[in-house]
């Protein structure tokens, strides 16, 4: 029974990790851009929901608005700043995005204080789901359901639409896509905004589970990189599998070997690097 608990719990965690990591992965896949500000977008998403619910705005409205605002801000940042450094080596990407992440983090402290806060789940999902001895928070079940729907939607977007085809083609050769008359600059902005918006949504969804505090972005960035490295950079399916794997390992290990629950994630990452240097589903 306890392993069923941990399995469901692991899937819940894993879906959140997937949402967080897939944006990072897509951005890297298309733009070959290492975005260390990804955690900052997650942080912003969480704080926007916190701020709105504190002001009495309905949680659902907050959940809808936060990722849209984050995506908008990301698009603006991409257009004003990041677009100018795509052609530079990766060290510059990291320099600029780490700077950006620090600025966002400090801005959050200035605006909302260093202490953090709590976000209550909406009343309708505030209870627990019970089936005999099996108890699980309704809100976490909702998160599993919603991320599942989003995962399917995203898969369709990338595999079944023209935008998806352009994104996939762009990740192979941006020059070729440009030659075909497609405005790759706009596609880049859209993809960056989509990736950041997904991070914002992950933050907004995580807020009632984790609460908000100014350093949550750093932790999220760490997890996102682990998932992307295990799954393979630029791979959608890889991010999904790795996200679930990390979530389930973390949760099941809490029963088997609690002290090592966190260690196992990084050990797992190490193993994948040694045996499959490109990740589970990564490209060369």
């Amino acid at each position, binding site marked *: *029974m*306890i392993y069923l*608990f*941990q399995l469901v*719990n692991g899937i*819940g*965690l894993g879906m959140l990790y997937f949402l967080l990591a897939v944006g990072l992965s897509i951005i890297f896949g298309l733009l*070959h851009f*290492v975005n*260390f500000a990804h955690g900052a977008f997650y942080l912003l998403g969480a704080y926007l929901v916190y701020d709105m619910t504190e002001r009495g705005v309905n949680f659902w409205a907050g959940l809808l608005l936060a990722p849209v605002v984050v995506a908008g801000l990301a698009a603006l940042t991409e257009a004003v700043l990041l677009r100018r450094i795509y052609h530079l080596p*990766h*060290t510059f990407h*990291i320099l600029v995005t*780490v700077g950006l*992440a*620090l600025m966002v*983090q400090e801005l959050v*402290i200035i605006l909302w*204080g*260093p*202490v*953090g*806060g*709590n976000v*209550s789940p909406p009343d309708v999902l505030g*209870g*627990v789901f019970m089936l005999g*001895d099996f*108890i699980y*928070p309704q*809100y*976490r079940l909702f998160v599993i359901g919603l991320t599942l729907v989003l995962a399917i939607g995203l898969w369709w977007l990338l595999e079944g639409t023209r935008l998806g085809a352009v994104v996939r083609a762009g990740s192979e050769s941006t020059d070729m896509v440009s030659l075909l008359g497609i405005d790759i600059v706009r596609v880049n902005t859209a993809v960056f905004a989509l990736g950041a918006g997904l991070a914002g949504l992950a933050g907004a969804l995580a807020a009632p*589970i*984790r*609460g908000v*505090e100014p*350093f949550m*972005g*750093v*932790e999220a*960035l*760490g997890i996102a*990189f682990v998932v992307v*490295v295990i799954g393979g*950079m630029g791979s959608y399916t890889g991010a999904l599998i790795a996200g679930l794997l990390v979530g389930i390992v*973390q*949760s*099941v*290990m*809490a*029963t088997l070997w*609690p*002290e090592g*629950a*966190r*260690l196992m994630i990084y050990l797992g990452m190490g193993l994948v*690097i040694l045996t499959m*240097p*490109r*990740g589970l589903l990564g490209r060369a």
Partner: protein
Amino acid sequence: MLNRRDLLKLSSLTAGSLLLPAGLRPAFAAGEAITIGAPLPMSGPFAANGKFGSMGTAMIVEEVGKILDRKLGYLEIDTEGKPATAVRKVQEAMERGVTMFSGGILSSEALAMGKEVAKGNGVFITTAGADEITGSECNRATFRWSVPTFGAIEQTVRPLIEQLPNAKRWYTITPQYVFGDGLLNAAKAIFKEKGIEHVGNSYHSLTEKEFSGYLTNAMAAKPDALLILNFGSQSSDTLRQAVSFGMKQRMTILLAWASGLEQFETLGPDLMEGVYFGAQYWHGIDSPFNRELVAKVQAKHKMNPNYAFASAYLTTKLLIDAAAKAGSTDGPAVVKAMEGMKYAGLTGEEEIRAADHQVIKNYYLLKGKAKSAMKDKDDYADIISFGKSFQSPEEALCKMA
């Protein structure tokens, strides 16, 4: 193009640097004035505590103004929450003539600074939690105001067992390092004495953020009470997730080492209602000194003093009073004046035990209130009980050099 190994290398370097720096910020320059060092984490994850601590020190220094015919000042030292940085900056301050230090919120930095101040013949008082500070690593220069793990458990677990005679099965969640084990061992001793069944314990690492796995284990053991033995944001995360799993309705929850108002503001009444908390300080304590402090802080800062503020105010005051009594700011003279000192403190009558430099003070058991029962925005909890419990210096393994 960047390969995955380079990316990993870079990510490990950069993730750490997101938590980085700020410098030594002199609030007053050391010179003719008597300067009290306030080594606190002013940047990094514990910056909020550092900020309030600095405000507390500033307030008492300003209030007293002058001792021994010399102007009083203080030097804010940003430890960044890192022992190495703390030691380096304390050394620098001592080279500038500072002999008295009040600060150190994290145990690791406090232990390191205590040793450094002892080497330089200064005096240091801290509020950090590790038992070793006045236990196995006690030294001549270091004093500690906060109650160690033994007393924190004695004053929370024991009264709660007495209040809840039907809670026979307890589950514990413990961070795996000396602080957590200190709390856990003290709790186990009481369980054994009272015939309580300890139905399980989950150890977790100090970096853990996700507690649902451990809580699932706890629920499966069907306890009557859940004892949370971690602290800071980890205890907030544990409690938040426990409440989301409906555990508040199924069992009594005790968070034995809460940080008080700072933490309650982040939790809010929805999570706190009906939950028990252990605390070193609460602004609602009914003692003359505390009532006076609360009134002064409300008048000056339009807020209630929290633990970091109040404890820094008091520990700095102890240094000032001892220096005045000793007629000197010389470290050993101030140490001598502090040993055995009895005074009206925040928690009532307090005493500095000479043998191990531990302050003998009350520890509190609080219970979270419903939002509708709160009289003002900070009225998160009621005091249920309080008292003083300490191991003897010998039991605490203090051998003063």
